[in-house]
């Protein structure tokens, strides 16, 4: 049973940061709740006095700004991937991978900020954002804003972030991408055992075809480390009932190649 002493719903970001940086009480930011509420309810997450619900802070937005799409951290996964720009980005890689974040009733509550904060090892949508070379905007207790690439973000984990660091925004580069995706799972909709998401910026030289062999391809891999990682980095696959480390390592190469092949086939 969730045992909580406090529930806060601040009306501004500064209030939220103040609540979160107050060391007299152990508080966690609450976004959609699809992860934190179960963790509280099952007592996996115990050392908590209160939650700071970010619902009333204006962090649910999707705006195009120059060659960048700004996505507020409280935007639900559904709103995010169904946004017209996101639907078509990189051949639809975002809705395609979001399907495996969970069914609609979870994606209608889960948020972009929560997805980034959790960085679950089998999150294919996270891997897609990593491959898209997105950036993360976070605000720390002193209200200073820092912008990090997904790469820097994952390489700085699993070191704990400062408690008051709050993810406020995701920024997606707007360019012409191609996307490729491949996965291995127990069942068609199950979270993956391993998966790869490949993204390539389409470089068009006048009217010529995209360059071949592909250049500038980024591949996000799932299931081969404590969090999704970029192909090329050292693998540290888990060894569990869904797949042994050896299996995951072997499969990661197969899905990587398949995701790449999707790029050249123009078939997601």
């Amino acid at each position, binding site marked *: 049973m969730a*045992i909580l002493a*406090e529930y806060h719903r601040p009306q501004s970001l500064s209030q939220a940061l103040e609540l979160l940086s107050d060391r007299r009480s152990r508080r966690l930011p609450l976004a959609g709740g699809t992860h934190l509420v179960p963790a509280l309810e099952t007592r996996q997450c115990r050392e908590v006095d209160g939650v700071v619900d970010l619902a009333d802070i204006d962090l649910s937005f999707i705006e195009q700004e120059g060659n960048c799409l700004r996505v507020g951290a409280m935007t639900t996964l559904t709103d995010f991937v169904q946004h017209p720009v996101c639907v078509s980005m990189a051949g639809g890689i975002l809705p395609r991978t979001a399907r495996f974040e969970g069914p609609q009733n979870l994606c209608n509550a889960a948020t972009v900020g929560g997805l980034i904060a959790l960085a679950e090892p089998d999150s294919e949508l996270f891997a897609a954002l990593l491959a898209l070379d997105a950036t993360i905007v976070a605000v720390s207790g002193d209200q200073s804003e820092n912008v990090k690439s997904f790469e820097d973000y994952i390489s700085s984990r699993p070191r704990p972030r400062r408690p008051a660091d709050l993810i406020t925004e995701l920024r997606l580069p707007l360019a012409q991408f191609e996307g490729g995706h491949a996965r291995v799972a127990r*069942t068609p*909709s199950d*979270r993956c055992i391993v998966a790869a998401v490949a993204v390539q910026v389409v470089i068009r030289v006048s009217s010529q075809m995209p360059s071949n062999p592909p250049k500038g391809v980024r591949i996000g891999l799932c299931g081969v480390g404590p969090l999704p990682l970029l192909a090329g980095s050292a693998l540290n696959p888990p060894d569990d009932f869904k797949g*042994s480390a050896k299996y995951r390592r072997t499969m990661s190469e197969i899905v990587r190649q398949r995701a790449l092949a999707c790029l050249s086939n123009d078939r997601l």
Partner: protein
Amino acid sequence: MKRPVTLTINGTFHRFESQPGELLRTALRRLRFFSLKHGDETGESGSDALLFSRTPDNPTSYRLVNSGVLLASQADGASIVTLEGLEENEADRFNSPVSALQQQFIECGAIQCGYCTPAQILAAQDLLDREPHPSEAAVRTAIAGVLCRCTGYVKPVQAILRAAAQLRGESTHPPQIDVRDAPTTGEWPADSAEGLPPSNGWHDGGPDTRTQTQSVTVTLAPPQTQVVNRPEPKVDAFKLAKGRPVFTDDVELPGMLYAGLLTSPVAHARILSIDASEAMAIPGVHAVQTYADLPRVIYASGGQSYPQPPPYDQVSLDSKVRYVGDRVATVAAETPELVQEALERIRVEYEVLPAVFSPEDATQPGAPVIHDEDDAQMIHDPACNIAVKLRVDHNDVDEALSSATFVFESEYRVHQVQQASIEPHVVITFWDEDDRLVIRTSTQVPFHVRRMVAPLLGLPVRRIRVVKPRIGGGFGGKQEMLIEDLCAHLTIATGRPVKFEYTRQLEFSSARTRHPQWLRFRSGIDADGKLVAMDVRVVADTGAYGTHGLTVQMVTGFRALSTYWLPSARFDCDVVYTNKPVPGAFRGYGAPQALFGLEQHMEEMALAYGMDPVDFKRLNWVKEGQSLPMAIAMGEGREGFPQTVQSNGLAECVEAGATSIDWERRYDPAWKAPSDRPNIRRGVGLAICMHGTGIAGLDMGAASIKLNDDGSFNLLVGATDLGTGSDTVLAQIAAEALGVPLEQILIYSSDTDFTPFDTGAYASSTTYISGGAVLKAAEDVSLQIRRHAAAHLLDGADAEQLWLENKHILAPDGGSVSLETLALHSIHQEEQHQIMATASHMSYVSPPPFAAQYAALEVDTETGQLTVEKAVMAVDCGVAINPVTASGQVEGGMTQALGYALCEEMPYDEKGRLQIGRFGDYRILAADEMPVLDTILVQTYEPTGPFGAKAVAEIPMDGMAPAIASAIYDATGVRIREIPFTPERVWRALRNSLDKD
């Protein structure tokens, strides 16, 4: 500290106080919105979904979210819609309006247990609000987040597509069920001789309660029926479609306390001390109970007939724990939060003992002894951790094998899975005004629970009333007296009503599962390919307690050695204790294990001998008129009774299924190895199955029927509807026999105070056994009606010559009187008496249903990932009393069987700790990832069953895993003898075969 929450619920403004940690689901149920169901704590079940908006002025802003993963405070200021609010004129109880979705769910048979129905309907509503022309894929995506363990999603999807059409103004009709007759093998019964009332097809020899077994020799058309064999909507569908408060948990009793269970964190330990003082000191905690507080009464928890099959190796709370999840202490407190706090403050000191997690390790010399208590009874060999040893010999197997033309041996392994009903185990206990203990519980066996719990509580049976309301699925998991004792002890200790509901985590760790087994088959055939002997050795893992260990394994032996006819046979089985969560009854009950081995063994042997596997099976499978020699030796934990197969549509099933799956594709190289996808191989596989119908000589059901003033009838049955539709089927049988439409039968079931006895819902027995009782009671009532009519209302008529039809009593001369007139007359006017009858039924035969199960799949040879494209089941269940509910049983059972074969698994770490604790990790199939399911009912006429019926509930579980194994072999040439077929297991098997080459 509580804070105010304002919330618009179904258009009405609400303001209430809520603790910061309170879930929205909990708060709404507190406000009596009971359509939101608790399926889990982590949001994967989705049975608590509702429509949610923070900007209700925009009607398109409502989104489907799960109320169990939202805090009530998060919803402050929001607007929500629950199923209760879907219908604008919901308050009109006089006319009982239904929405298009509700109507289609009812008519299409989309509701089985109904526990996930409210969320499914809301999910569908959400879709139809946005998309009036949804594709099937869109429908499946929309409901993918609402897990259903009963239906296989076929009928819910059909219902939603039809509701969409209905809302568009198109005409719809319910989906057709594929029902065929197999009259060439099963013979239809003789119709009535001239001058006699129309036959109901029942062959009963008089007043005793036994089924007579004379065969019927006249071949005629199927019996003409008005209610039976027709797709009547389920009698409980309306209230379930409405989300009415009908489940165990859907009541609020004044002063009710909540219960919780502290479980063992270690696999094997002695409890040195328990200090509950800190927990008891919390204000609002009313009781903490440990082994020191409860009487030590030895029992066996499996819900079975008296006397319980041994071993007797459990007590309510023990000073020793035998698996991670074993019971340590209970708490009763005023809120769930206080329960949790109290549980966390109980200090337990354990002396950790060595533990064993496999039968191999448990039976090694020097292995730790799991049951070293001196008061356990009838354990076969406690020192060696052998709970049960079974050895059955039929003729001389060794002699037969030594003279056989060809002998083949192979080994198989099956794993542990869980029933995983979406409604967890839940029970509410309270003292009534007569100081009798009422147990309102989600059980399959209310009468067994009452008998079994009484000695544990020190109460006589007469002071206990067990009530089973609607329940949210069971599948065998609730054929157990699992937690009723603990909850009742807390009510006895506190004097207060107590509710005890398992969390999903507790379901996995501390409920029941399917027995894992290792099986070895050794068989011999003669030169023609006919089996001469089969020797089956099984080592089964019964976890920490024996419960169903004896009887499940006996069924394994019986199924392994009866599906094909054997001149000689041997079953040799050890049922071994380990320090693991406890297996029990699970749909199929030993048969899926047996058939996974048997069907592959037969296929492998045929290939090794050079015969076509299907021809080989056809040559050997048991035929009509053949006896089942193992039946006598292998009853249910006792001596059985001779069985002869009297109806068998297996040949037709194999044929019908082959057409549906397109069996000939297995010879088409272009299909098997598609040129554009070089890593893909495709295959088709078959398994045949045979099951039983009730437990011969043991199962008994009873029914009472009473005539009301208006010519309607109350039907009271002990039988237990788990969502299967048994109430409907039993009411159909009564309606048919009494010549009335279904609506004239008011059924009430499973209440030990108000209904006669029934063994309960297990062993595929209800339609056959309880249905037999209903038919007898109805015939008795019919005779009483006809006698009264003949004596008073149809002058000069002979009661024997009258019959009931269309709510009237009819005479051969054209005379007629309505049932209502008859009822009023018999109750109020002349020779006044209550027309009423009670009848019991049991059977010394257990006629087997037969089936062919097919799978078509593709194997990704690089990754090992399987994708099942289509699964087919053609089943001979006798006459289907209700083709919709029967096909629903098949679809749901096949889906569970697919999970058994593909993805469901209970993995442990090296300390015996379960590695899964939530849906998702324990993967049950969702609506958007199902293969095409095709169900064909191949009807035979079973002369011993009511209106020709046999069982259908469990057989769908039996053959899917071996059919998939067969299809993998067809696709790749690789035989995998262990389930589940996870990607890595398949990949390893494919690689090993390459290495060998």
